[in-house]
């Protein structure tokens, strides 16, 4: 029962070319809340900053400013040293996220031991077998090495690893984009089932609007580091308001619209004055984060 609160997240990277240094703002004032039992999809094209958000939540990168706080059921913020018991991540490429040198058991045993979920060889193996069972894999896979598994199986192992510390918040960074088409839905359905069983809070990061709509409760659309639209999944997809979301939705292949490729390219909608605004479907209005922040400062 952990809630993850992300507030005003900013990440800047320093680019060095020769002696010149330029700062690139990859993420600008991003904020959302992950609630137990619900999935938020973070959607955007590559370079929109969505993976950077994931890496900051997984504490692989330090935010330039802003806060990421895991809050326990009692409303108290979880201490930093316990943060990783609660928040775990599933990586995009299952062929890269498992160490080719180690057995599947190693990948599950380490988080179990590190987070005090199991002691002693017997108990660790038992727990690891249970984890494999939960992701629909036979316990016999334990002594295999990653390269002996298919992509879908590897991603299931990666999900089991994320569950091993008893995490309540899972960040899934494009968990199926590297998988074969026919194993994608299986993995997504698995994630959905685990979410129901454990009441997990899930952040599903993807560029695929269709799975974002069907897999999540609400959608946050990012473009160039900013949130441009947010709201309940169906509202955002079926009634997109921001020009960027509209373009993105139009770009998804759709057999029903066969032949539209031949029609004249509408091009991206003329970039409007709304580029820096966020449409909030819950509030039903456009929001200017920068202005709000300014207002907050002056009010204080």
């Amino acid at each position, binding site marked *: 029962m952990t809630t993850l609160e992300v507030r005003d997240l900013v990440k800047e990277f320093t680019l060095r070319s020769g002696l010149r240094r330029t700062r690139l703002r990859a993420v600008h004032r991003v904020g959302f809340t992950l609630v137990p039992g619900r999935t938020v999809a973070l959607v955007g094209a590559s370079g929109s900053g969505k993976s950077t958000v994931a890496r900051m939540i997984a504490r*692989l990168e330090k935010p330039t400013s802003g806060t990421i706080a895991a809050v326990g059921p009692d409303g108290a913020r979880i201490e930093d040293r316990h943060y990783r018991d609660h928040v*775990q991540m599933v990586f995009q490429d299952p062929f890269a996220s498992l160490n080719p*040198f180690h057995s599947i058991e190693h990948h599950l045993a380490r988080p179990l031991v*590190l987070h005090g979920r199991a002691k002693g060889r017997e108990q660790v193996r038992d727990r690891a077998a249970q984890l494999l069972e939960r992701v629909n*894999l*036979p316990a016999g896979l334990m002594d295999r090495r990653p390269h002996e598994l298919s992509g879908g199986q590897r991603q299931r192992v990666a999900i089991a690893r994320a569950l091993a510390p008893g995490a309540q918040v899972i960040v899934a960074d494009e968990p199926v984009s590297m998988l074969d088409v026919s194993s994608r839905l299986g993995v997504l359905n698995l994630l959905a089932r685990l979410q129901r069983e454990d009441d997990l809070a899930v952040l599903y990061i993807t560029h695929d609007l269709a799975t974002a709509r069907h897999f999540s409760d609400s959608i946050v659309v990012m473009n160039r580091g900013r949130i441009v639209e947010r709201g309940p999944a169906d509202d955002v997809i079926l009634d997109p308001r921001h020009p960027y979301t509209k373009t993105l939705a139009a770009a998804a292949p759709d057999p029903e619209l066969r032949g539209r490729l031949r029609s004249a390219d509408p091009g991206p909608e003329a970039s409007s004055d709304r580029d820096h605004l966020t449409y909030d479907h819950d509030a039903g209005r456009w929001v200017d984060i920068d202005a709000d922040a300014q207002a907050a400062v002056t009010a204080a």
Partner: protein
Amino acid sequence: MTSVIPPSSGLEDLPPGTEPGALPPPAAGRRTGWRAVLPAWTPKLAVGLGLVVVIALFGLLGPVFAGDPATIRNIGLTGPSGDHWLGTTQTGQDVLDQLTHATRGSLQIGLLVGVMATALSALFGVIGGYAGGIVDEAFSLFSNVMLVIPGLPLVIVISGFVPADQRGSWTIALVLALTGWAAAARVLRAQTLSLRNRDYVAAARVAGEKPWRVICVEILPNLLPVLASQFVFSVIAAILSEAGLSFLGLGASNSSTLGTMLYFAQNGFALQREAWWWFVPPGLIIAAFGCGLALINLSLDEIINPRLRRPGRGRAARALSGSSRKDAVRSTAV
């Protein structure tokens, strides 16, 4: 350029929806884990290992059976015979007896230097590469400085400063290790830089592993082939440099190595007196040992870079089909 990759041993070919319980047979083609660290059995490796093992046994067991190499007889500079298989030196010492002890001495130094240089390069290369930032800058600056200092002259200077009576084989090994680790450190740093960005390293960090454990458990095993190759390389380099130093009279004073043998042979005008049995055997052993280690190194390279591995049958098959890889690559690239 993408190349045709044969489907991996039927694993991806399972019909969709195969029961999770149906385990695919373990793949035989690709190897990971400890097996991946061992090179594939090739003629190259067999010859290399053979040479190294024979010479190592010679150095290890030879001195047990050999007589005292220092025994002076009054039959100076005689050729090979039944009594003295490899003849005698100027002072009538048995060359074979000397050779066994010298081989042992050289191997000892080679091994010592190999271990120390590899440890140093791992320390500076892997830790620097993983830590990044200021630590990396400092470590790589240091190893770059060590790299551009010309090795042999420095060794000569250092050896020259240490008084001859304190110049044991440990001193020499230390000096050689200190001058010989930098190149390996750069290679390891480059490898570590690429490994540390792998997702499995990130995953280990997310799981909460401590940095030293990430380095030792997640990164180092994947560096083993590179480490082994660097180790073998520094052993070759150490044996050669030690031979060079000893030949110049700057070697360890209390030990006998292949280099000191050559040094005495040179001093005894073995070449001018055509006493080939005195200088050819130590030279041959150095060459054969270096060759053996180099062959092992080539096999290790094939692990690091699997593209060097070409199945033997491939050439014949391609010759038959009349289209070679070069052909294909050129025409697709052009």
